[in-house]
């Protein structure tokens, strides 16, 4: 067996509001080696908000791990520790073998045993992980994730800590997944999906197979609900979850990229829309910075300004996106729908 291996990963992926999205896009962007923008413009279009759950805002419920697009392939072991022991499966050996074959192991671990993580040596914390390599010279796995300094980057996990972090999980079974980039992946431009998902986003609907929750909002309504939630938590608790402002920024970055791509394909004829999407993206960047500023100052006026900017962003999108959709439909006609 090799002594060390490091699989490619993009550490500044286009979507990284949650680690899961960052892992998936990190693998895709780290391996692609071609222009993925045409494909990306058909992703992360609709979004949803649900207040009752832990992660309340998502921009990636449509095939986030790119399996339907056949860009990443997947296998899994969903086993209890008991069954692992019965079979004598050794986690260290299993992960190393998988990495040797080009598969990225991922799953859940207890961060109490993971150096550089917030919960290290403090408390039990169930969280997701990905491994990108191993090094037998210092007995460590190489992983990527958000560390205690708030940055998404590569870090090392000693072999014995990794095993301990999995074996101490308080769940009935461990979900281990293995991902591999499909070397024949095609990053095709999915025009039909853009029209369908954009229509859902504008109309605050969801036409995809997705569990129906009474209190889940989609599209532009989801962003308004997120704004109301941020206003509530900042004023009542003095707290803001920056993952949500990061998510808004990711979403608007891709919307801007989408409009650019549609222009390049001569599917949009009004340059104003390009400027509008750029304006919205710039506002989203400011919103994220205001979030950071709020964390430091706790000034409610900053939170209020942040929310006003979200409303402004929504207002611009409500104004121009329906016209984009009409233009897309009329430019291409019904044959693709």
């Amino acid at each position, binding site marked *: 067996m090799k002594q060390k291996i490091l699989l490619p990963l993009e550490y500044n992926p286009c979507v990284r509001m949650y680690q899961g999205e960052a892992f998936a896009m990190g693998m895709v962007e780290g391996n692609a080696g071609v222009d993925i923008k045409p494909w990306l413009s058909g992703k992360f279009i609709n979004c949803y908000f649900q207040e009752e759950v832990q992660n309340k805002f998502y921009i990636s419920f449509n095939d986030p791990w790119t399996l339907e697009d056949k860009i990443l*392939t997947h*296998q*899994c*072991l*969903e*086993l*209890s520790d*008991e*069954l692992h022991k*019965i*079979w004598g499966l050794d986690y260290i050996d*299993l992960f190393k*073998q*998988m990495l*040797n*074959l080009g*598969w990225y192991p991922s799953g859940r671990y207890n961060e109490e045993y993971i150096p550089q993580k917030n919960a290290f040596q403090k408390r039990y914390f169930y969280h997701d992980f990905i491994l990108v390599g191993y090094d037998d010279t210092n007995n460590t796995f190489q992983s990527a994730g958000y560390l205690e300094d708030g940055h998404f980057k590569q870090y090392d996990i000693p072999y014995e800590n990794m095993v301990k972090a999995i074996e101490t999980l308080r769940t*009935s*079974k461990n979900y281990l997944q*293995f991902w*591999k980039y499909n070397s024949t992946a095609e990053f095709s431009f999915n025009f039909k999906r853009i029209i369908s998902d954009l229509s859902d986003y504008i109309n605050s609907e969801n036409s995809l*197979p*997705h*569990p*129906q*929750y009474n209190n889940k909002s989609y599209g532009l309504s989801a962003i308004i609900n997120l704004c109301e939630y941020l206003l509530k938590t900042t004023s009542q608790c003095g707290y803001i979850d920056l993952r949500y402002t990061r998510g808004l920024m990711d979403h608007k970055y891709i919307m801007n990229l989408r409009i650019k791509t549609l222009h390049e394909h001569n599917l949009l004829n009004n340059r104003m829309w390009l400027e509008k999407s750029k304006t919205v993206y710039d506002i989203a960047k400011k919103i994220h910075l205001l979030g950071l500023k709020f964390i430091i100052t706790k000034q409610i006026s900053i939170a209020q300004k942040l929310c006003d900017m979200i409303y402004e962003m929504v207002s611009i999108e409500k104004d121009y996106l329906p016209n984009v959709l009409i233009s897309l439909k009329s430019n291409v006609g019904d044959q693709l729908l």
Partner: protein
Amino acid sequence: MEKKCQLPFVEPEIMSNAYYAFSWGVIKGNLGDEYDKILSRKYINCYFEKPFQNEKFVIATVDALSEKQNVILNQALNLHKEVASALRLDFVSMIKQCILNGYYVFNTCPSICFNESDSQNSKTKFLVIGYDSINERFIIKASNQVGCLNTYEVNDREFIDRLLNLPKENIELKFWRFNNDNPLILDLSAIVAEFSDYINSKTSLVQYTKNKIYGFEAFERLIEYLKEKLLLGQPFKRELLQSVVDHKYCMWKRLKYFAQQQIISREYVASAEIVYKLSTSVFSLGLEYNVIADRSTGEKVIESLTNLTEKEKEYLPKVLEELTAAKLDLTKNNHCNQ
């Protein structure tokens, strides 16, 4: 390792879906008569689904395996063959170790593995329930061509080779273990919610509801489907008819259990039994219609199903009232005891 081992399994009464049948067989095999407590809250609501002309009548709106109720622990292996080979996994030995430790092994394979069909396209679900190392055999339950469960003894190595040679990239296996530590609580709140959903033709569960029609309306939609088929002179889907029998059998057994526990009046058990008998007529007449293609027989099927639905609409709302009252009593008692 033991030379022979076989896990408990009791022949199940419901047969519309091998997945339900296997989980029923495993739970009943391990629990005996106490199974009624689990059945009391399973297969209450149902739905009719018509996506892309592939009609389904489903009697398990949620948790068909009883995994969420923590009755069966379900684990899965879904590995790329390349990886399984690199890891040098010996599936024969792994399955034997599983069985020895109380794990049943579930998956789908071509019926040809059990000599039930010559075609690679014909698939069947199977459950490995035991092994015999002396004769190098796995003991397997699988459904045959007419939808009945058979017990097969097949060469262990040949069976695994067949699974590994399927034209698929991955090898997939599921491992079920009966949870002996489950306290088997009778959850009246969940039962009332399911009955209410069934009667009001809705679901309060979080699930994808597009193209699905629930509860009483599901039966009305099923009747419409049968009428359409009859008009076109086409056969009725056997699985749909079997699902009706399974649903009514479970309702009858459930009400019998509730009556024994003095949660509802005994009169409803008789009603449920009548409905169950009507469902068996629906099934047998439906099969007869499929063979002889006689219009009047088809009409009798529809008539029986209509009668059955009307009967349920009469008595089940009263059952719901009694269940709701029992739930309230229980809540009050619990409150007083605290």
